[in-house]
């Protein structure tokens, strides 16, 4: 058994989908390490490959295939594990909470049974104690009247309640790693806030490591220790959350932050900047840096040569994939300011309504 860092270590992962046009890479050279108990945000636009990464880690990719790299979990490479062994990891070692809880629950099984069957499977509880434990778990996720809800069917619950059920189910075996794929995206704002609060509390209490897949930087700021920013299937920046928010080193991250309103700004002052252009389609990746066609700071080398993931600050683990990050970090030659101003002049005309923490999904022209 090789020694690998962290609880989960995704190493040089490349994932491709088979299409009519051949194999198209949705994720390229992706590397990520999650320590035990660490909460990691994986941020990107629709189509950036974030869900592909989540499902590859779970080894549950439908049409895609990992073509290169490894997913080390507790020293074992999940990608080469016999399929039979994954059943002992699913639900016990790694739990998954998907985006839409209603369709993720079986419509014709009672809520209590859907939780209890996990307990019977992995913790080998008998029928009676599993049912009792399921009710206790519903209480843990602050569902009122747990015995009644346990006897209900999914369609009888609200979206927030359904997602709480999914969370209760995911945490029922106290797994060391929890993967959340946009768990609050389909909920309304107040429900989203309540579910996030609950998640934060439950995660903190159990030292569960988390991979939180989202397009919402506001959510990441609330929940995660570290953030990995994904663009067109490539990791462009990986940093502790507070450092990333204080000083983003990749122009794409800067663009993301600029397109989210700041808390406390008056709505009359807000000018949100959208990033011009759009994410390249699979198979139409530029030869140089993937972000170069949209980047306000792009120079000749950016179009010619693909940057590697560079260590920006070794002590707190900052990584960035940009040719010009040292200039951005130093603020040299007005690189940062000029670039951001220029972009605003071009695209940031619209005044947008302020929403706390950027909760509104359509607050910018493109979704983050």
């Amino acid at each position, binding site marked *: 058994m090789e020694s690998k860092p962290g609880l989960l270590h995704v190493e040089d992962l490349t994932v491709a989908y088979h299409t009519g046009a051949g194999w198209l890479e949705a994720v390229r050279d992706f590397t990520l390490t999650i320590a035990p108990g660490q909460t990691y945000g994986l941020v990107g636009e629709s189509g950036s490959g974030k869900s592909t990464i989540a499902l590859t880690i*779970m080894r*549950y990719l439908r049409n895609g295939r990992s073509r290169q790299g490894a997913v080390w979990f507790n020293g074992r490479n999940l990608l080469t594990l016999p399929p039979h062994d994954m059943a002992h990891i*699913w639900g016990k070692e790694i739990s998954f909470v*998907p985006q*839409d809880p209603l*369709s993720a629950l*079986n419509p014709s*099984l009672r809520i209590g049974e859907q939780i209890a*069957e996990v307990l019977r*499977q992995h913790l080998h509880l008998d029928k009676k104690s599993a049912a009792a434990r399921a009710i206790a778990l519903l209480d843990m996720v602050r569902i009122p009247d747990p015995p009644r809800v346990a006897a209900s069917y999914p369609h009888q619950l609200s979206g927030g309640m359904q997602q709480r059920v999914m969370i209760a189910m995911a945490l029922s075996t106290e797994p060391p790693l929890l993967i959340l794929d946009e768990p609050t995206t389909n909920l309304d704002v107040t429900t989203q806030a309540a579910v996030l609060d609950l998640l934060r509390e439950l995660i903190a209490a159990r030292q569960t490591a988390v991979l939180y897949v989202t397009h919402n930087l506001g959510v990441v700021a609330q929940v995660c220790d570290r953030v990995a920013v994904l663009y067109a299937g490539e990791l462009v920046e990986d940093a502790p959350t507070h450092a990333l928010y204080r000083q983003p080193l990749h122009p794409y991250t800067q663009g993301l932050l600029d397109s989210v309103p700041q808390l406390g700004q008056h709505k009359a002052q807000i000018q949100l900047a959208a990033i011009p252009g759009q994410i390249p389609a699979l198979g139409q990746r530029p030869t140089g840096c993937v972000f170069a066609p949209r980047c306000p700071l792009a120079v000749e080398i950016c179009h010619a040569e693909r940057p590697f993931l560079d260590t920006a600050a070794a002590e707190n683990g900052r990584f960035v994939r940009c040719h010009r990050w040292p200039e951005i970090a130093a603020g040299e030659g007005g690189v940062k300011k000029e670039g951001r101003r220029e972009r605003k002049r071009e695209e940031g005309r619209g005044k947008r309504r302020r929403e706390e923490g950027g909760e509104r999904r359509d607050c910018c022209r493109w979704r983050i």
Partner: protein
Amino acid sequence: MTKYIIRRLGFLALTLLLTSLIVFAVTQLLPGDVARIVLGREAGEEALAAFRETYGLNDPLPVQYVNWLGNFLSGNWGTSISTRTDIFPTVMQRLRNSAMLAVVTLMISVPLAVILGVIAGLNEDKLADNVISIASLAVVGLPEFVTGLVLIELFARRLDWLPANSSIRVDATFAEALPMLILPALTATLVLLAYIARLTRAGVVEELKRPYVRTAILKGLPRRTVIVKHVLRNALLPTITVIAISFGWLISGLIVIENVFNYPGIGRLLVFSIDRRDLPTLQAVTMITVLGFAIANLIADLLYAALNPRIRLD
């Protein structure tokens, strides 16, 4: 639920009332004079008039209808014109025979069709699926009298395993009748099989794509649990409904099969009564047929509702 059942029973009564009107009207429209048919060509005018008087054939039609319906509801179905016996016990006997055949058919066809459908659905577009789908389609295209005769030729004449003739005794018990039931039941199975199997396959294919299946797999449940407990519970809902409905067809729709095998069920009684212009029997058989279909549909709906928690009945 109770409210729903009461409402559905109300609909059932209404359906039967409408049917009785149609049945009565159609028999009135049929050519020929009932008295003449019954008494024969040589009967004198006096005898005919006396007959019409006795059976109320001179009454206005609404009066005739109400009398007929009242008699029907009280189990007084009259006497067969052709056999001069009470209709009610005859129809009940045939009904029992048809029900026996229906039960045997379902016992053979349902497990077979569901298993084949599930195998095909789980192996969508693979070899097993293609073989099952093509074979079942090929079989369903054949008419019952062809498959019936082929089965007789094979199992009765060549192999001599089963009797070719299924004319069971009137008072035969189920156990006595069973060997004679197998060939007609197999023939009916071949009609039902493709239908049920394809429906099951479609249900399985559709349900497998749903996100809850992913949830079940990612919970770490064994594959068998995922399929039997999670997928089939939802995938078989339409299948169960269709099986319940097909019971109505099995009771009264096996006209060809019952005739090929000479089996004394409702279907044969229907053909017999048409042959002999036995109007009272024809009316009774038609009413029973409609009742059978209506009850089968009601059971199908109730089963679907009972098994599917998303259906709200009130």
